[in-house]
């Protein structure tokens, strides 16, 4: 694929920003790579890409993509992305967020961004911890797990971002993948980008620095992960199939089944849980009147002024 991409115009380097400054082995790197390869394969013009993030290790991602980027405030990537989208239907918007960024401080915006269903791809890099601030519990940290804010162990069972996302009216694309399976990661991002609306992709992401070995069990015991397959789902090849022997056929238009896979305590679902092309797009509302020229505007304002003229 690399060769093909290069021949067509933009090559991988055209999407490479500053040298990534993540720890060795950090799962964020896999996501960055998949994203760069995908946009190269799709030959998206770099100037038409906006990568938007909050604050966190994961939110450093825009700095490493050679494109327009917005590395904003902790928890606030979604409103910014929605605002960019509101008057710019021409841009490709990718959002990088962390489990603290999205599921703690960003909760309100997460819920509402899903509801708005504006065209963008959300990548939740969920390492189950606060990385950048050095190992505090996040809402997805496992119960009893040691952290700097909970040296006695996190007191609560983690929230389930998939279930909560699925529960939001207008959710239109909900998928899960893992950083340690690049082909599935790539295929998931591809499907997400091609979907019109807000695609929510949760990536289980390893943080070797603070959560060393945390996902080992999942990587070792294939029964802990369940690959969801369907011809309306994420495209998978044999290698992916082989990596996930525990598989289930799941029609992504079935919300009830999606909720039950998402909530299954036995196995983490990987694949497309839900997709709905019919969901409403708030960008249809916000893009109204785009391109009205100055003359037309002045004329309309004059009419408005007439209403107040005495």
């Amino acid at each position: 694929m690399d060769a093909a991409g290069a021949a067509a115009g933009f090559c991988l380097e055209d999407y490479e920003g500053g040298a990534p400054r993540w720890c060795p082995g950090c799962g964020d790197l896999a996501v960055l790579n998949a994203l760069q390869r995908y946009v190269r394969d799709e030959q998206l013009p770099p100037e038409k890409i906006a990568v938007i993030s909050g604050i966190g290790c994961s939110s450093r991602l825009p700095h490493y993509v050679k494109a327009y980027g917005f590395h904003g405030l902790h928890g606030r990537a979604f409103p910014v992305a929605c605002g960019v989208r509101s008057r710019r239907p021409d841009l490709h918007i990718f959002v990088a967020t962390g489990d603290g960024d999205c599921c703690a401080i960003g909760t309100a915006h997460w819920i509402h961004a899903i509801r708005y269903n504006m065209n963008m791809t959300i990548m939740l890099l969920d390492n189950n911890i606060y990385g950048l601030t050095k190992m505090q519990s996040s809402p997805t940290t496992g119960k009893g797990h040691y952290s700097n804010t909970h040296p006695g162990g996190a007191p609560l069972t983690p929230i389930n971002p998939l279930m909560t996302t699925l529960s939001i009216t207008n959710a239109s694309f909900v998928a899960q993948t893992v950083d340690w399976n690049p082909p599935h990661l790539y295929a998931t991002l591809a499907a997400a980008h091609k979907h019109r609306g807000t695609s929510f992709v949760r990536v289980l992401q390893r943080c070797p620095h603070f959560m060393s070995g945390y996902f080992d069990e999942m990587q070792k015991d294939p029964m802990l992960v369940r690959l969801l397959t369907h011809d309306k789902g994420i495209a998978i090849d044999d290698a992916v199939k082989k990596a996930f022997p525990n598989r289930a056929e799941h029609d992504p238009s079935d919300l009830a089944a999606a909720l039950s896979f998402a909530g299954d305590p036995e196995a983490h679902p990987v694949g497309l849980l839900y997709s709905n092309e019919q969901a409403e797009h708030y960008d249809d509302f916000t893009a109204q009147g785009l391109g009205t020229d100055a003359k037309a505007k002045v004329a309309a304002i004059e009419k408005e002024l007439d209403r107040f003229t005495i």
Partner: protein
Amino acid sequence: MPAKEATEEGISQRARLAQVVNQHIVEIVSDSGEGAQTCGQMFGTISAKMGNGVWTVEIIPAEIEPPFRSRAGASGNRIRVGKGVVTNMGDQADLVVAFNEQVLYSRIDDNAIAKGAHILLESKWKEDRLPEIRAAYAEAMKDFEERGFIVHEVPMEEECLKVVSDPRRGKNMWILGMLSAIYERDVSLIDAELERKFKRKGKDVIQKNVDLVRAGYDWAGENVDLRFRIPVAPSDVPMVVMNGNTAVGLGVMAAGMELCSMYPITPATSASHYLAGSFQKVGGVVHQAEDEIAAIGFALGASYAGKTPVTITSGPGLALKTEFIGLAVMAELPLVIVDVQRGGPSTGLPTRVEQGDLLAALFASPGDAPKIVMAPATIEECFHFMVTARKLAESFRGPVMVLTDANLATGQQNFPRPEVKEEWIAPPVDQSPWDGEVRPYEWDETTGISQRPVPGQRGGNYVLTGLAHDEKSRVAYESAINQRAMEARSRKLAALRKTLKTPEVYGDEEGDLLVVGWGSTLGAIEEAVDRLRDEGQRVSSVHLRFLSPLEPGLREIFSKFKKVMTVEINYSDDPDGLGDARRYAQLAWMLRSETLVDVDCWSRVPGTPLAPGMIVDAVRSRLNAPAEIKRSQSAQ
């Protein structure tokens, strides 16, 4: 039509009695939902049409539907009508129409009614079936007399019933008619207004309202002996009348902005309501976000993408936007923020006026976050400042705060119709290739200004960040880069200040006392100055529109006066007894630092606009105060 003839005759007879006045303040108060507000607004509009200056103030109850016949429930309008331009709500009312005696008490409690004022009071309560209501009415009548009001009992409901079956839905129009007779208003103008207002509701509704107006007019023609004539001077330029929130909304459109991203909050929301209804016609959209943080975040997203937006809010909402405002300064994103100030702190007095957010506007964001802060002083300026604000936000690349307040927001005034210019409209987003040589924060050495690439511009890509960064927008931790970047952002204010004019002094350029004001108090302050000068006092005033950067030359101006004091609608300790512990009003505090002049202040937080008379009294007492013991001091 005999009725009409009778009317005209009655009028012409009584017109001879008309007392000529330069201005009059009329209040109409009712229970919430009885329509006193509409009545008052229309009275204001037709007065403006006839060529009077007007200023209207809403009288708003605290609850949505307060109990009827209660002091807390007073709802209505105050209309000040004058010979020339009217710049403020004035002092006490000269004439009040009250739907019951209890709502009148609310105005009496607020000290809003002049001794000797005419009170036109619904008389039906006299014969109410409930004895306690009859008693309350009778008692009030006695009390009103003792207070020196001239009460006219008016059988409003009775008269309305002759025209309509449900008088609660028509009394206001009947009263409008009555007032038109008393103030010699041209009723045909009312017809036109009604035509426009009820166009959608159909002919019958229009006719019913016309009939009510006529009935009130006729009744007054025959039964009321009061006549006031306020000389009119029809304008030779087209005039508009609107409130400040509408003016802001229109200004947003005239500036060519295309997005208003907001979260509802009183008293700012009505600006967004206006925009929500009209914005689409000019290709714009109102986004109601899930909260204020999301509202400004969304706005900044649009700004980053090339469309300078506006976000409109009030105190509590401003507090929530603090962090994002810091980002807008740091990452240099153009944005217009309108803060319609209300009573604070915290939830405070949501519907009432205050000028309490000045220091928060300047300093709320942690770290050094220099930004432009402006305050329109009139409703007309509410419009024009939006056009300026968008331009400044873009040329100086950052947030511009525009401070209005509940007084401007809901007050109505007439002013010359703006001539909208095509060059006011923001140009389309530049999508031409970017000159790769130009860095995204290539700060000009002296002005700190740099050019901004916009997504879509090939070769312009950069990663915006709120972290300390260099000219390439690369995250940087080096001391020198941080110092340089902070300096660049600060320089922008100095650069803007260079372009600002020294403000003009109202009155003589030297004297005993200079009043300094900002924002909505302009009219009241200048009227107070006029009155004081008429008394022979050597008083002048100066009014600031730019609060950050401050307009230049203030120290010079102040040096020509024995005493300088600000007048503000915010809290300050009165001087007595506190010595150095005294806390100053917000502008006063800034000006002391800026000029090192011992700027005094008089400020109040009544929840209402300041009346010129209050200012006159305050200035007079400071003029008479013994020389201050505390003197300004320079280092030895």
